[in-house]
């Protein structure tokens, strides 16, 4: 849609509250109507929700789909033959995975927007890139797992991509050293999944007692905090630990959903996640889904301008978060800022339907 193209010429965190409000009211109307007209499943949901897509609503009143729905149903707005890429969430074996269907326009927009957001933190120069993962994460080119999609997406932002881990997920120190030797005086980009960086990169450096000369590098990482929280590693510890092994580097966490690849939320120098021009966030009170104010905890709803080929422009995640402000971050970037407190807790429901506790 034209909104994305128009925004590409502006800085990615430039829209003020009022500008954004106007843009999103208009875009949500169009995106919702597009999905309603082209996706039968989506249409039935809106009918049950008593939502009329032909009249305009306030931004907060547009419906959202729970992310789990993308696991159980094939949701798409375009004929199957227009799909160029199918993304999947990185579920563990046996778990259902989300399936996200991209046509050419949506896929291209994702790449452009991701690059645009990253350029804000990396500059417009494409840096040499060290991917902290194994090439095997990309094996099936037709099915992009969240990991694979992240690698492919971010590879467009860097150049000369080198993988730091071998096929068995062991640190490939020779490749890393060769990479460093090749770009001795350039600031580089490091990218990887949070838990993989910790498990397979940082821990290996510790074990081998190796320090890497990476001063000036930027490390972008995201996804999979749960494993780290289980090991009592928080964002601060993660940062300090990586700096202790890699020198004076900037560590940036990002938050994003495979359902809305591209429009990621980057953590700024002040430790807040930022909604860019291309996305918005609303925190919802679990009791009635009413919109929460600043510093009120609730369920995280994400809005993205990118999804056109599937009804994923407004989704309800299973994360708990809270807004920290809007257009007032000390870092100077505009847009809403927020922090994530983690996944909703799975509570054991009462009832007598099962007994002999599961093996």
């Amino acid at each position, binding site marked *: 849609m034209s909104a994305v193209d128009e925004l590409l010429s502006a800085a990615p965190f430039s829209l003020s509250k009022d500008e954004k409000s106007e843009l999103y009211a208009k875009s949500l109307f169009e995106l919702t109507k597009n999905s309603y007209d082209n996706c039968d499943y989506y249409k*039935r949901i809106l009918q*049950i*929700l008593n939502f009329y897509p032909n009249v305009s609503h306030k931004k907060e009143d547009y419906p959202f789909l*729970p992310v789990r729905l993308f696991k159980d149903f094939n949701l798409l707005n375009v004929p199957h033959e227009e799909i160029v890429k199918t993304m999947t969430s990185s579920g563990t074996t046996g778990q259902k995975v989300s399936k996200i269907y991209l046509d050419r326009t949506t896929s291209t927009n994702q790449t452009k927007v991701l690059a645009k957001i990253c350029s804000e933190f990396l500059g417009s120069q494409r840096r040499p890139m060290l991917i902290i993962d194994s090439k095997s994460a990309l094996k099936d080119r037709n099915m992009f797992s969240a990991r694979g999609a992240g690698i492919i997406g971010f590879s467009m932002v860097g150049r000369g991509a080198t993988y730091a881990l071998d096929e068995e997920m062991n640190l490939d120190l020779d490749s890393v050293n060769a990479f460093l030797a090749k770009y001795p005086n350039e600031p580089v980009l490091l990218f990887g999944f949070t838990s993989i960086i910790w498990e397979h990169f940082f821990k290996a450096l510790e074990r081998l007692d190796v320090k890497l000369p990476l001063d000036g590098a930027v490390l972008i990482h995201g996804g999979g905090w749960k494993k780290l929280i289980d090991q009592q590693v928080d964002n601060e510890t993660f940062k300090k630990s990586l700096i202790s092994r890699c020198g004076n580097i900037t560590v940036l966490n990002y938050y994003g959903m495979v359902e809305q690849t591209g429009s990621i939320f980057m953590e700024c120098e002040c430790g807040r996640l930022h909604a860019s021009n291309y996305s918005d966030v609303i925190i919802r009170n679990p*009791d009635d889904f009413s919109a929460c104010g600043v510093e009120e905890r609730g369920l995280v709803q994400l809005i993205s301008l990118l999804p056109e080929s599937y009804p994923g422009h407004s989704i309800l995640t299973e994360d708990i978060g809270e807004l920290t402000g809007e257009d007032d971050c000390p870092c100077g970037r505009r847009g809403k800022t927020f922090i994530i407190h983690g996944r*909703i807790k799975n509570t054991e429901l009462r009832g*007598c339907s099962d*007994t002999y506790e599961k093996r």
Partner: protein
Amino acid sequence: MDDAVRHLLSMGELKIQSYGDAVTPMKNDNITWLVGDKIPEYRVFEPYSDVVCSFLSDLSQTLLKDKSATQYPDIASFAYFCRKANILKKKESFVDRKIRLGRGIIFHISPSNVPINFAFSYVFGLLAGNGNIVRVPSKTSPQTDIVCNAVKILITDEKYGDIHASTAFVKYGHEDEITAYFSSIAQGRIIWGGDGTIAYIRKFALPSRGVDIAFSDRYSCAVIDSDAVMDADTKEIKRLANAFYNDTYLMDQNACSSPQLIVWRGDACKEAQKKFWNAVADFASRKYDLQPVSAVDKYTKLCSEAIENKYVSAVSRYGNILYIADLTELPDTVDNFRGICGYFYQYHCDDLAEIAHIVNEKYQTLVYYGLSPPELSEFVTKNQLKGIDRIVPIGQALDIDVIWDGYDLIKTLSRIIDVR
């Protein structure tokens, strides 16, 4: 020594020592003895024997006096069930002019997510005159601890020596050998569980004369007369909402006896539904602790049903505390539609006979408001329904009793001595 025990010995799992006829596993590190410390003696009583009645009365008093216990409504209702007056009332109504004794040892496999159920199961075994081995869920809960401690202390009293000797509450993991052994010495077994659990436990043989009582997964529904709701004053509608809340939200709607489908009878149904659900939503929003995960589950269910349940025509929502799905017709498979944490299905009929076709053997409890018990029992008998074992007013869906799921537990767990 029978084959099962011999098998165990050969596995080296249970070390068995003989005292005369009694076979006693002396030590199995995998069994935690919460009450008792050995396999109960084979000792039987008459149903409602004086010692058991007195024991339950003492247990009731102990629990009602325990400050830590009173905060749990399920313990309170258990203690209330065990009180002297109630047990004596049950004893009086149990007149079958037969001479009876317990069957022997009853092995109970209790549910993991209803903390207090093991205690009721035990009491039914006791009242029928049996010794009991109760497998308590391995998950810990304060309710389990409180009841176990109360029983443990009481049975040290000399006058309850017989009960002491014939009681064991155990915890163990999935050691099939232990389940096999307990089954092999039980004259009766009570299994609470889904179909899978029941089939699994039944692989372990009871002695030839052993009886199995299986409380499987059931389905329950409610019928409400619209005129009765319209006639109800504010106070009555509040009471009704409270009663309905207890039947459903108290167990997150997962108890087999919690109604899932609400059938409305009569012309005034639209207004009556509004009046009733408003009151329920109001009550639940003040009482129910809606977890974020439940809100997401419920909303996801709503979206999924919009996509794939063609019988759902509309869903009314009261915040996230209450969702009600309107069904345009009742398919025979309606018992597959299950709500959670305040998600109900409703249907309107003019005559109860319209719903007879949906009732299969899965149906357990019919909860009612504004209809008469004779009319409802006639509905079941006249239509020769294969299901519905309980018909109770709204508010009593979860009240477990000696008659449950179509069984008279006291009669089933005792044997008749036929004297002529």
